[in-house]
């Protein structure tokens, strides 16, 4: 089969690889119909996540048709079309039982700090991802969710990660009616978080980034305010000013470890790798939120440590909430939102690219070229 193949930082290609096999009785083999490139993929594409091995196939956002099932799979049958959550969850451990599906303890031997994730380095379990024609899907009774009749595949594929993560970012913000919510990052996740903040009753939603085309997109798609951090002076001071000098009620970090905007963070975090990426957005979130406010983090950071103003967290009495999205927990509600027209996931897609052009697709997304927001890869077998 054809599959994306990571060869090193900024180097990927499509190769012939053996088709995945059933390795565990709860496995399913899924024929991929669509996969996406995610901002999270950029962290591994850039070589920032430890134990990203050459030969790995990335891709944690995919939908497909069940092609084969293991002997213990009872909830799916061959031919079912499924949304595959990006996290691999067993459904039986203490965490899965409490709906912490992003924190499963039975899907990753290599690290306890993160559950298994498709195509996301050996630190996240060493599974291949869905930027390929087929993928092995463990615990097929738990994660995969049948795509409802009539749902567009482009909507479905964004339910694997972008919609749940954006939604959970807003959910973790504990938004009270009328709250002012500031979202850092106008990538797919930030845009979706801004959109979902309204569902929780926000009174004002502000998105901050430095890419004008993304800010413009966010303004329209998420019906919110949008500002370029390079044009507003100190972003924290800007937030204070625009909130009657108290700070935002909720700040959301939808940027993660490759943030720009702060020389010291960029040099120590991204160039010298002396910390686990640059924590600029998180710093701004902590400093820009009100006393007693909530900072919700979905941006991804490395496993070592980051320079953040933790003293201010203490002195301001800030609550920090963060997680990998519990996709499976959120899917039923999110499917309702999509079907009712309250969310329009596929509206985020700007690029539909053949799987074979994966190298170009990564570069375009990584360098923010061609007004790219979200890229979908389409395998050859489903193009005809």
């Amino acid at each position: 089969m054809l599959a994306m193949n990571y060869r090193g930082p900024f180097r990927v290609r499509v190769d012939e690889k053996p088709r995945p096999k059933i390795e565990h009785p709860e496995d399913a083999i899924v024929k991929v119909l669509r996969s996406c490139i995610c901002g999270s993929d950029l962290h591994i594409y850039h070589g920032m996540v430890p134990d990203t091995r050459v030969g790995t196939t990335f891709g944690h956002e995919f939908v497909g048709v069940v092609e084969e099932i293991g002997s213990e799979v009872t909830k799916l049958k061959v031919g079912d079309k499924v949304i595959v959550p990006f996290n691999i969850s067993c459904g039986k451990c203490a965490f899965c039982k409490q709906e912490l599906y992003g924190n499963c303890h039975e899907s990753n031997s290599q690290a306890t700090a993160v559950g298994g994730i498709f195509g996301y380095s050996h630190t996240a379990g060493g599974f291949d991802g869905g930027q390929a024609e087929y993928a092995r899907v463990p615990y097929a009774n738990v994660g995969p969710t049948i795509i409802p009749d009539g749902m567009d595949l482009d909507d479905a594929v964004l339910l694997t990660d972008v919609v749940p993560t954006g939604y959970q970012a807003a959910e973790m913000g504990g938004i009270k009616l009328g709250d002012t919510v500031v979202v850092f990052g106008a990538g797919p996740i930030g845009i979706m978080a801004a959109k979902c903040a309204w569902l929780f009753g926000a009174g004002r939603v502000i998105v901050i980034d430095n890419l004008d085309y993304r800010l413009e997109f966010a303004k329209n798609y998420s019906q919110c305010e949008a500002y370029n951090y390079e044009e507003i002076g100190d972003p924290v001071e800007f937030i204070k000013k625009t909130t009657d000098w108290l700070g935002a009620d909720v700040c959301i970090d939808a940027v993660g470890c490759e943030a720009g905007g702060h020389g010291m963070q960029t040099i120590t975090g991204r160039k010298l790798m002396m910390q686990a990426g640059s924590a600029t957005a998180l710093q701004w979130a902590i400093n820009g939120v009100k006393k007693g406010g909530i900072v919700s983090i979905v941006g991804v950071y490395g496993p070592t440590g980051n320079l953040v103003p933790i003293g201010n967290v203490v002195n301001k009495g800030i609550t920090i909430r963060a997680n990998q999205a519990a996709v499976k927990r959120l899917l039923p509600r999110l499917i309702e939102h999509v079907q009712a027209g309250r969310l329009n996931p596929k509206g985020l897609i700007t690029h539909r690219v053949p799987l074979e052009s994966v190298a170009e697709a990564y570069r375009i997304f990584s360098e923010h070229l061609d007004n790219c927001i979200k890229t979908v890869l389409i395998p050859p077998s489903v193009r005809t």
Partner: protein
Amino acid sequence: METLKSEYSHIKGWGIDNVSDDEPNYPIKTYTGDDHDRIRWKRPTLQRETVEILKSTERPTNSAVIGTTNPPRGLSGMIRRYAFKHSENEFKHWLPLLFADRIDVVEGIIEDLVHLKVPRLIKERGWYALAKHAPGLLARKIGVRLAVLVVGVGSLKLARR
């Protein structure tokens, strides 16, 4: 709520998921008390270890399901094995892994060559997309590489003298 709702009538579904009794732990987790049974949950069927799996020192056994792609190999594999002697709590775990990743890249190129496959570096780097959408950026990248090369060759020559 109703007055606010009319104010935001242009936003479909405004406020529909608001939970006004939001508590710091709601709704991230549905507390069941299972934590107190510690790791004594009924485990899924255990997958057989068919390739070398490097296990975190912070857990007693492998997870029930394991990823079997790209087992450790060569020099990078040796470094990874060393890294996995240290817990996730230590830089001695993560920094060697990052280093191993870089060695792995060289091993990947050797692997390609052994299979008589010359890596198409320009294609793999997506430079065709740069040429199309950002020729200036591509020129800069090439310029920087050329400069590094010139300085490198120059200093070699100087060193020989």
